[in-house]
């Protein structure tokens, strides 16, 4: 093989060695402005020799053979080739490339032009990022890329977001692997303005990443300066004001009292509010907890430039955001600093480095689940005022009707104290060695090192007999560190044989190691019961004898991989690529450590064929197909070996005594989860490249699904304290879907430019295997003391909701009598109660009648993005729609005296009054068992971002020394249209089984932004 390459190389060199040589000089200018272009590459074709233009656009190459061809290329411009015929100066005008087909797309250990790409690859540019002004990078992927869905866990500042590429494929970790400039990293901490492009690999194209590519791969390219360019400074700033997008329509005090009276009377009990006059509207606790005009501030700057051999970028950013609930207790601060440096050590050796420092500080209140601030705000009685006569927080009464969990949300905020700090350094150093024109060796190390600290203070507090009462103060502190490095060594060989046969070969190895540790400790009896004194150094009390106030963990996981890729094309028309990766991972036992992941992609640029050459309609047409096998090893560590990390604690001699027990049951046969990805795609451009369409149909089949803590027979003792079931390869999930993206770009007149893009993704999810005898896995909680409601089961979408189907409301006793008894659900039915369907027709309503009530997976998601430029004004709007996702209403505490949403005003009060909302009563009913009454269609359309900008005229700013001054204002999350009753139809915990259950999600805020972009 190498011999042949050598012969070919020698042959090509000898072919040009006997020609006559001249010195060549020239100037290169930019087409539209006529300005000289610095930094343009000029290469003698088929050699490594060339030059770069200087600040004045001038270049010179000595000793150029006559009849050789110069290739002139510059990013974003159409490349040109010019034959050298004599030594006359060559003047060349480069035209801006409007086709973007020559746009370079990174594909992992290499790059291709967009034209050559044969996988399903989408990109998001820095322009989109700046238009969207996202607080976190993930937000920029929502609605801008087909096949990608981003969900929020909470609208609280700094809360996590989940990215799902082409659906949920596993009940384990579903997030994609993220690579920043080649090394594995974390998307969520980046400053969005440091990013040049985001590339999403959705299909078998990601197979070069083997074991970690199964959930898709996101490649981040950070901004870097250009060689031979003047120093450029960019400064961006915005301030924003946030408010809630939604308040739920709750009963006011009078309505509440009347409903309570009715429900008590229905059960023959005394009226709690015999006199409702004078109650008025009472307290809307939402008004108490939500704040308006809550600030968010962002500043960032970058300085970049380059000399002949060196290019640099320095950037920094500062973001500060307060929450719309408890602004001062839920704030988020992120500071970043970055240095990027690349240069040429010699003609053949280039280096680049990129280091990012991040500091993050986040405080939070309970914003999720039973006990969250919003849960309290929704359930606290409106008849209670927020403060008592003394100005203290009022206590939610400790009565059976109000339970023991509901507390005054303002007091809850007041008594919440915590702090989280994170310091992270990540970056990479890379050296490219290019011994010949065709061959490049790259050696690269990327690293992340994170130090994080957390502290929370449990203050002595009395809510009047509630579960959140604290009788002894304590402060818990933790310190964790996470480190990893990715070491890559790979070679790229690129050559053309017999003029039309282009080959690129990549061969390499990568090792990855992640390690870290955590230390947790608690101190009791905080002096003065005060946050200011909350530190273990002062809180010297200890837990009871035998209680361990400290704990720790450590981990060390590694991967070792070898990969190769061969890309071939004939005249750029027929494209083929094949990849193979061999992986070893410490997640698996010694016998199952090694796995191979093959894949192949192919493309056919139909528009290059004769029969389409002259088409006036079709400018470009490409067919693509890809198939490959990818892996996933994201499971708990050491699942193949039995460890003594269970819980063994008992009381001897009156004190806690600790022993040892087995933790997770091992599975020595653990193997890789396997994703088989098929994709067929069609890309075309029509009407003078104005319309650009990308379509894909995909089938992702996940086999050997690694199911952690899979339910197994209890006889093996896995349900002991601290024990858990083994991780077993026991499932399969299939996602099928269709993606469609269309861009329309047109200059309607000299002053008016329009760009519209629309994308659509359909998704069908089906579980194909759950091999644990029962055929399903449960998750997700509903209400209090009720069985799990979400399931992963063969033939159903993953995480579908499993409960009773209703068929309206019993209007009269005759209807009740005509229906099978509902007693097995807990109580006999009365008129006004929900009627459950006897799904299996066995004459009784019992647990066997539970069925599929919907699922949280959207059937269709869509994005619509619009950009308009008129003279110096620019306008952008981004919208996202999700259709067919269901959500469970679970923020209502089903107790007799809690407040309710005002839909209860439409309840059944007698025959014919309602067939949807059941009667109110404090008597026993089965209306609160999990049924489709609680499942709502959470389809929504959200106008995510609207922005209007104004660029100051060039003549005005040039005199001030600026190259760009842009003022803008915008609104994020302007409006959400939905039938869903809760706060946020787009929120979910992100759990594959148990997602889409609404405990009162913190809504994402609406933000009014005012910003400035300055360049000079």
């Amino acid at each position: 093989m190498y011999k042949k390459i050598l012969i070919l190389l020698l042959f090509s060199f000898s072919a040009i060695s006997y020609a006559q040589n001249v010195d060549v000089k020239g100037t290169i200018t930019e087409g539209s402005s006529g300005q000289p272009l610095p930094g343009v590459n000029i290469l003698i074709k088929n050699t490594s020799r060339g030059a770069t233009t200087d600040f004045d656009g001038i270049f010179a190459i000595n000793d150029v053979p006559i009849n050789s061809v110069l290739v002139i290329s510059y990013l974003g411009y159409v490349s040109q080739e010019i034959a050298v015929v004599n030594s006359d100066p060559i003047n060349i005008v480069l035209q801006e490339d409007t086709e973007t087909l020559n746009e370079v797309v990174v594909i992992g250990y290499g790059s291709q032009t967009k034209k050559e790409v044969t996988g399903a690859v989408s990109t998001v540019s820095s322009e989109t990022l700046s238009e969207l002004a996202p607080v976190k990078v993930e937000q920029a992927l929502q609605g801008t890329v087909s096949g990608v869905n981003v969900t929020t866990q909470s609208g609280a500042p700094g809360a996590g977001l989940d990215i799902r590429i082409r659906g949920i494929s596993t009940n384990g970790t579903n997030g994609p692997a993220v690579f920043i400039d080649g090394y594995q990293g974390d998307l969520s901490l980046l400053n969005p303005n440091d990013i040049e492009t985001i590339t999403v690999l959705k299909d078998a194209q990601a197979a070069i990443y083997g074991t970690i590519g199964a959930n898709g791969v996101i490649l981040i390219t950070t901004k870097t300066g250009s060689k031979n360019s003047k120093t450029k400074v960019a400064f961006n700033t915005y301030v924003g004001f946030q408010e809630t997008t939604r308040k739920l329509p709750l009963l006011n005090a009078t309505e509440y009292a009347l409903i309570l009276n009715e429900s008590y009377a229905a059960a023959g009990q005394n009226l709690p509010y015999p006199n409702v006059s004078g109650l008025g509207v009472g307290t809307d606790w939402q008004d108490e907890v939500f704040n308006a005009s809550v600030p968010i501030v962002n500043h960032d700057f970058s300085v970049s430039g380059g000399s002949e051999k060196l290019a640099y970028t320095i950037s920094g950013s500062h973001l500060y955001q307060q929450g719309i609930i408890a602004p001062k207790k839920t704030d988020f601060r992120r500071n970043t600093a970055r240095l990027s440096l690349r240069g040429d050590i010699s003609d053949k050796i280039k280096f680049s480095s990129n280091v990012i420092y991040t500091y993050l500080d986040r405080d939070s209140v309970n914003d999720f689940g039973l006990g969250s601030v919003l849960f309290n705000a929704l359930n606290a009685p409106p008849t209670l005022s927020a403060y008592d006569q003394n100005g203290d927080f009022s206590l939610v009464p400790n009565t059976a009707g109000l339970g023991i969990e509901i507390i005054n949300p303002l007091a809850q905020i007041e008594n919440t104290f915590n702090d989280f700090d994170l310091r992270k350094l990540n970056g990479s150093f890379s050296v490219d060695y290019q011994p010949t024109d065709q061959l490049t060796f790259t050696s690269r190390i990327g690293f992340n090192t994170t130090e994080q600290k957390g502290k929370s203070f449990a203050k002595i507090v009395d809510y009047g007999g509630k579960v959140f009462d604290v009788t002894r103060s304590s402060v818990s502190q933790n310190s964790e560190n996470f480190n990893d490095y990715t070491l890559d060594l790979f070679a790229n060989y690129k050559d053309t044989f017999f003029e039309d046969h282009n080959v690129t070969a990549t061969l390499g190895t990568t090792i990855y190691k992640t390690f870290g540790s955590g230390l947790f400790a608690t101190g009791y009896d905080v002096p003065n019961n005060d946050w200011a004194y909350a530190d273990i150094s002062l809180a010297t009390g200890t837990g009871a004898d035998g209680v361990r106030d400290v704990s720790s963990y450590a981990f060390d996981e590694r991967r070792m991989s070898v990969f190769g890729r061969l890309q071939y094309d004939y005249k750029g028309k027929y494209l083929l690529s094949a990849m193979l990766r061999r992986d070893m991972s410490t997640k698996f036992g010694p016998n199952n450590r090694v796995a191979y992941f093959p894949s192949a992609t192919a493309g056919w640029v139909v528009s290059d064929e004769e029969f389409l050459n002259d088409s006036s309609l079709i400018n470009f047409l490409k067919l693509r197909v890809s198939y490959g096998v990818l892996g996933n090893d994201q499971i708990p560590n050491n699942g193949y070996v039995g460890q003594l990390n269970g819980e063994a604690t008992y009381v001897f001699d009156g004190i806690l005594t600790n022993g040892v027990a087995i933790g997770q049951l091992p599975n020595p046969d653990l193997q890789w989860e396997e994703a088989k990805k098929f994709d067929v795609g069609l890309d075309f451009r029509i009407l003078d490249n104005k319309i650009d369409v990308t379509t894909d149909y995909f089938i992702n089949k996940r086999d050997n699904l690694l199911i952690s803590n899979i339910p197994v027979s209890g006889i093996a003792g896995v349900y002991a304290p601290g024990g858990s079931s083994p991780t077993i390869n026991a499932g399969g999930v299939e996602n099928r879907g269709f993606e469609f993206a269309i861009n329309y770009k047109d200059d309607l007149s000299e002053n008016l430019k329009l760009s519209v893009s629309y994308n659509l993704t359909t998704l069908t999810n089906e579980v194909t295997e759950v091999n644990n005898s029962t055929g399903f896995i449960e998750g997700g909680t509903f209400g209090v003391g009720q069985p799990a409601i979400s399931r992963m089961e063969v033939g159903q979408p993953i995480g579908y909701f499993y409960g009773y189907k209703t068929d309206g409301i019993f209007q009269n006793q005759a209807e009740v009598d005509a229906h099978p008894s509902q007693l097995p659900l807990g109580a006999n039915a009365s008129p006004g109660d929900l009627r459950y369907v006897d799904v299996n027709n066995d004459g009784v309503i019992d647990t066997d009648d539970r069925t599929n009530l919907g699922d949280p997976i959207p059937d269709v998601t869509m994005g619509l993005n619009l950009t308009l430029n008129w003279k110096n004004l620019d306008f952008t709007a981004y919208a996202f729609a999700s259709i067919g996702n269901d959500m469970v209403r679970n923020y209502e505490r089903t107790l007799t005296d809690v407040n309710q949403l005002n839909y209860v005003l439409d309840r059944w009060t007698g025959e014919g009054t309602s067939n949807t909302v059941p009667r109110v009563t404090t008597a026993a009913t089965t209306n609160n068992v999990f049924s489709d009454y609680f499942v709502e269609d959470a389809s929504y359309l959200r106008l995510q971002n609207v922005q209007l900008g104004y660029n100051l005229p060039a003549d005005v700013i040039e005199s001030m020394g600026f190259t760009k001054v842009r003022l803008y204002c915008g609104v994020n999350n302007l409006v959400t249209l939905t039938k869903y009753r809760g706060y946020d139809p787009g929120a979910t915990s992100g759990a594959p089984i148990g997602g889409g259950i609404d405990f009162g999600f913190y809504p994402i805020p609406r933000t009014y932004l005012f910003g400035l972009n300055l360049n000079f």
Partner: protein
Amino acid sequence: MKIKTIKKIPVLVILILVYFSCTDDFVDRNPVYSIDSENYFNSEDDFNNGLIAAYDLLQSTYINNIMGEIASDNTLCGGESATDVIGYQQIDDMIHTPVNDQLQNLWNWMFAGVNRANYLLEFQNNVDFEGKDIIIAEARFLRAYYYFELVKWFGPVPLKETRFQLGDETTIPRSPVEDVYALIEADLIYASNTLSYTAPQVGRATKGSAQALLGKAYVYQEKFSQAAIVLDNLIQNGPYDLVVDYDTLFESQQENGVESVFEVQYTDAEGAGFGCLQCSEGNIAVGFNGIRNYNGPLFDSGFSFNVPTEESYLEYDEDDLRRDVAILNIETWAAQTGATYGTGYEHTGYYNRKYIARQGDLNTGDQNLTNPNNYRAIRFADVLLLAAEAYNRGGLSDVTAQQYLNRVRNRAFGDTDHEVSVTGTALTTAILNERRLELMGEGHRFFDLVRTGNGSVIPGFVEGKHEVFPIPLEEIQFSNGNWQQNPGY
């Protein structure tokens, strides 16, 4: 120059390949700070640590006690609403099915206990040290304790003397009840022969614990003469006696007292959450039984489950000192003390006073899950009544039976005016009735009814079906046809 560079290529390629082949070692690493479960039990400490693990599951038997009581005619389920812990509600109404999370918990936790005892016993021959036989005997006692619960609740269950492995559910059959009892007896005979009446630490099983449980297992099998021998031996030789003042029996001062033959230990020292109830070091039944939204002296709030019926309350004679210790009449109490309370589902006005939350503990969060009240698993009164039953039903001596029964009754009334003098089946009825009154709220009633063929006094009880509970549906499915469901379910 070019040629030179090209020559370097093969060298570099070779270097890369060498690099590949060397670094496969890179992924050979041992888990950090970890002990392999299959290379343990190499010292006395290891055995002690493993024994603690086997004891740990005793704390999860709170569910046996609360659910056993709810299943009987003593109490109603209660709770917040008709759907609050639906598994308990269904058992109360005798409409339970193989789909029942609570029964599944009980199955899982008792087998977890069996497996932890078996883990230690599997390696019992590893090393020798003084006192090892004590540890082995305690582990065997615990295995018997867990298996006794399993056979009471589910009838035939799979048997193994080493850890169950995954897949055993498809091959190991449900052993007949006799075989399960045979293992229980063998373990308890070994334990009672090995252990002494005083344990190395309070809370550990003693000779008396083993004898009492063995006697009980005999009575359940109606092996009355064997039961009489072992129970008599215990009564005569053991250090146990009745506490004079029944009133103090369930308060903290009488924990591990003279009447306690075996007691499950709980503490309020450590927090707990609903996510892992079996992990709690507190007595969860106590919080569940507690008075709803209570404000007043002596007691703390709880979830108002397991509420005694009016009929249970009226079952006591007016002068029976046990009535107001066993059952709290909340209305009377509130009238006396000014206490306030809420009413939950199936509010009867009565609470299971032996095991409801008391004030004075640390209220470690979640305070309803961390009540420190020890569960008196086997009381000396229980032993006396079992012995009485063995002597009477075994036709051995009604006089001895009367003596043992009257010892319990005299304490209950504080005098000898209420002694029983009947014989034969009338005495049997008296003994069984006494068991109800004496052991009210302690989780034994359902099994006493069932083993004596009196299950049908429970509303909704179907003979031939409800004597045992259904095997959890998932387990039947896991067994892949190896296990059949109990009849009627």
